[in-house]
């Protein structure tokens, strides 16, 4: 275990339910992600990829084990601290874009900054525009989520994930809902951002082509990394 890892996970356990009904999803999982990593998370359906991403994203508490990010112990942190930590250090891209339907693209992108500062600042709007340009949507700034295509929505979601310049972006099957062409564009974008900005990505996927685009592949079998 190196001291300058972005994420260090040690003996992570996640069990749903109790007694006979218990489902043991993560069984002492160890994982380390260095800063600026570009990793694909592979594994059969039900192997616990989404569960792991939820725990790494501090959206779910593990049943046991250790988890530190940026040197912070995230197991013992309070709910409020975790909310704040997520906001500043972790970005999310999900299989579904989950954009706020009543907000336009720019408003969606700057949400993480606005919710942290309590208002939409000019600086945030400038960065939001820059990010939308970065994902190739500078002509869709005022469009609402319902007025965008699936691939465009996912690119807005990526811009939103990057808004607060997080050290880590967790992406759960980000191309799962897209056609091949859109998927390729999204993947290209992620690789580019990783290269240019040094943001670490952990991308769960079933698609070997996506995985090939990543620097390394993490395979999950039976609740552990192999």
């Amino acid at each position, binding site marked *: 275990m190196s001291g300058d890892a972005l994420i260090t996970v040690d003996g992570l356990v996640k069990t749903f339910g109790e007694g006979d009904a218990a489902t043991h999803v993560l069984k002492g999982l160890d994982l380390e992600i260095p800063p600026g990593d570009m990793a694909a998370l592979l594994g059969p359906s039900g192997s616990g990829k989404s569960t792991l991403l939820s725990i790494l994203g501090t959206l779910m508490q593990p049943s046991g084990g250790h988890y530190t990010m940026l040197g912070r112990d995230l197991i013992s942190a309070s709910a*409020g601290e975790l909310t704040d930590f997520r906001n500043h250090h972790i970005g999310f891209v999900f299989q579904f874009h989950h954009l706020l339907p009543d907000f336009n693209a720019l408003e969606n992108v700057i949400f993480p900054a606005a919710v942290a500062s*309590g208002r939409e600042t000019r600086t945030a709007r400038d960065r939001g525009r820059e990010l939308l340009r970065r994902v190739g949507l500078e002509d869709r700034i005022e469009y609402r989520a319902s007025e965008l295509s699936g691939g465009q929505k996912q690119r807005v979601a990526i811009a939103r994930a990057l808004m607060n310049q997080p050290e880590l972006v967790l992406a759960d099957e980000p191309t799962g809902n897209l056609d091949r062409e859109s998927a390729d564009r999204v993947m290209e974008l992620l690789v580019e951002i990783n290269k240019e900005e040094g943001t670490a990505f952990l991308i769960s996927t079933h698609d070997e082509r996506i995985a090939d685009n990543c620097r390394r592949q993490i395979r999950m079998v039976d609740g552990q990394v192999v």
Partner: protein
Amino acid sequence: MIYALKIAFRYLGANKTQTGLLLTGVALGVFVFVFMSALIGGLAVYLIERTVGDIPHVTVEAPSRDPQVLVSDVPGTLGVVQKGTSQRNALRNADAFLPLIASLPGTEAVSPEIVGNGFLIRGQSTAPVGLTGVEPGKLSAIADIAGNLVAGTPDLTNSTIIVGRTLAEDLGVSLGQVVTMRSDRGVERSLVIGGLFELGVESLDARAAFVSLSTARVLFELPQGLSRIEIKLTDLNQADAHAARIAAETGLKATSWTQGNAQLIDGLNAQARSGNLIKGFALLTIVIGVASALLLSTYRRGPEIGIMRAMGASQGFVVLVFILQGAFIGLIGGVAGAGLGYLALSPFPRPDTISPGSFPIDVRQGAFGLAILLTACGAILASILPARSASRVDPVSVIGQ
């Protein structure tokens, strides 16, 4: 806060039909509230005006002195004492108190009076009358005699008498004719009929007559002092307190109109209670309406609330977004309902000026401010449950969908 407000407004604006319906419902509830307040308040004003309009709010009299009882100390003696009935309890030194009574705050009119009984004689006809001596110019201080005059003038001189119309008809006299007034003291005076009134109250129209205070002094052999002082207040609801104050400061017996009208007061209170019940139900409907609409919205927006939480929105932020929606609906719906109520109720005449059969609505008692305040508070209260439920949305459970 500003950002939470923006999201709250965006949510409300996203479904204009639903928000519009909700606001309409809240406004209607507030309208019912305001309408009930104005109606119940107006009814009270109307009934009190009908009852109290022509009677004094406070009457000051001499404390009734029981006759001194001298009981023999021989055992077995039974003493029966009858309180004097013809004894006139005059306010001997009332003149001294008059300036004080007149200067008390809240006093609208003070009428020093001498009252007594007698007969009005015209030729062969005789009729019993209840005579009231009032200061000239204060004829209408208590009951509106001047306004109900059917003939003559309300100006009393020392040689005129104003009588009820029925009384005049019984005696067969008309305006300007001379009658003889004989008091129960046996004093007689010839007086000219200076006016005829018709109050619509048979006992008064057939029995009551007014003379000047100085004429009454002569008729009832009361060179000084008064029988009673009748008082009108600017606010008749202050009568009890006012009477107590006069009693405390003068030692005289002061009676509030409420003492003789306990049933009316009870009825008004019961009416106010049922009004409050209806108003309470109106508020309850508002609370339930707002709560269910917002709760529905939290279910519909579950996924995006989850995503907001994942993006770093705190539970408090989500709570704020929904409380602000409730507050906005309560405030705008409240103001709209109160405004609507004001517009609808304003054309109604004041209930103390209307004739029987009209709708007694008192727009001044609409309780508009209270309605808005209660509605806003109720709506905020109603949004607490949806807000809490929204803030507990688990990001993981909605994101996976």
